[in-house]
C-alpha cells in the first residue's frame, strides 16, 4: 500500500512537547506541509516566539531564529531586509503578538513588511500557567480572572487582526481555526495563500488561528474543540478580514 499521509519532509522526527490535544502541533504540521508543497524548505526562515511554541525550532527542519517575547515581527523584518530572497515567517501566540508585541506587529503591518505572521490564538498565556491574555473572552476563567473575565475590570478582548486590517501595508489577513478536520484543511489553504502573498512580494500577510488549550481551559481535548465551536467563534468570527491579493 502507498503511504498517503505521514510526517512532512520539513518536520524533524522529534516528539512534540505539547500537551495532549494542543493545537500548536497541528499548526506546525500544516506549516511544514505548506513548505513542502511550495518547495521552499531551503529558502524559508522561521521566527519562533516566547511561549509554548518557544521550542518550535526543534520540530521544523528549516532555518529558525528565535525572537524575544513579542518581537517576532521586528526580528522577521530584520531577517527579510538583510536576506530579501528568503521567505520569512514569524510564529506567535496571542500573549506574544497581542500584548507585549502589539507595537512591533502594528508597525510591521503598516510598513507593509514582506513577512508572514502565524498568529495562534488560544485565549490564555499557556506556558506560564493560564493567566488572562488580551484575547481571553469575557466570562472566561483563567488563573488571574477566577470566576471569569469581567468587562468593567478587565475590558474587552482585543481584535488584533481587525486592527491590522486597517493598516495600509497589510494585504492578506484571515482568521481560521483548527477545531475540526474541515477547519484544519481550510487553515492549511489560508497559510499557503499567506506564504504566496509574500513570495509574490505584495505585502504583509497574517493568519490568525483559533487553537485549543485543553490544559489551561481545564477541559478534555474534545470538550475544548467544542468550546471553540460553540463560544469562541462567536466572539472571533472565522472570516477573511482583508484580501487585496487580486487587487494589487
Amino acid at each position, binding site marked *: 500500500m502507498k503511504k498517503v*499521509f505521514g*510526517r512532512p519532509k520539513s518536520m524533524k522526527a522529534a516528539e512534540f512537547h505539547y500537551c*495532549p*490535544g494542543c493545537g500548536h502541533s497541528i499548526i506546525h504540521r500544516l506549516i511544514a506541509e505548506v513548505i513542502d508543497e511550495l518547495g521552499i524548505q531551503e529558502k524559508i526562515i522561521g521566527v519562533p516566539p516566547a511561549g509554548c511554541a518557544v521550542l518550535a525550532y526543534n520540530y521544523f527542519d528549516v532555518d529558525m531564529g528565535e525572537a524575544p517575547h513579542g518581537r517576532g515581527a521586528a526580528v522577521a523584518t530584520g531577517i527579510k531586509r538583510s536576506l530579501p530572497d528568503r521567505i520569512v515567517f514569524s510564529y506567535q501566540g496571542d500573549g506574544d503578538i497581542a500584548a507585549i508585541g502589539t507595537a512591533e506587529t502594528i508597525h510591521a503591518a503598516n510598513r507593509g513588511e514582506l513577512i508572514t505572521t502565524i498568529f495562534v490564538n488560544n485565549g490564555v498565556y499557556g506556558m506560564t500557567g493560564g493567566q488572562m491574555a488580551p484575547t481571553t473572552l469575557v466570562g472566561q476563567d483563567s488563573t488571574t480572572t477566577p470566576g471569569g473575565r469581567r468587562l468593567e475590570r478587565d475590558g474587552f478582548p482585543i481584535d488584533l487582526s481587525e486592527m491590522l486590517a486597517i493598516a495600509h501595508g497589510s494585504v492578506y489577513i484571515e482568521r481560521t481555526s483548527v477545531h475540526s478536520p474541515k477547519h484544519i484543511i481550510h487553515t492549511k489553504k489560508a497559510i499557503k495563500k499567506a506564504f504566496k502573498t509574500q513570495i509574490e512580494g505584495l505585502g504583509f500577510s497574517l493568519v490568525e488561528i483559533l487553537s485549543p488549550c485543553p490544559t489551561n481551559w481545564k477541559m478534555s481535548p474534545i470538550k475544548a474543540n467544542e468550546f471553540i465551536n460553540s463560544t469562541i467563534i462567536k466572539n472571533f468570527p472565522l472570516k477573511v478580514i482583508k484580501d487585496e491579493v487580486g487587487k494589487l
Partner: protein
Amino acid sequence: MADKLTKASIRINTELCKGCYLCKATCPENLIFVSGKLNSKGYYPANYSEEELDIEKHACKGCALCAIVCPDLAIEVYRG
C-alpha cells in the same frame, strides 16, 4: 472481503500518542479504540488493529480524518 482489507489502512505509533482521543472521536467508522496497555509516556494510547475488527461491517476507507486531527503526528495513512 480480502479486497476490503487491502483498500486502506492506518498505522498508529502508540509511543507518540498522548491520549487526546480526537482521532477516536473523528473516525466515521469507529475503528479506533483505546489500548489497555500504557505507553512509555504513561498514556493509554489510541490504537487500530485489523485483527480485532469486524471487517464485514467496518473497514478503513483511508479518509485520513484521524491523521488530520492528530496533534502528535502519530498516524500514518496507507491506501492501496
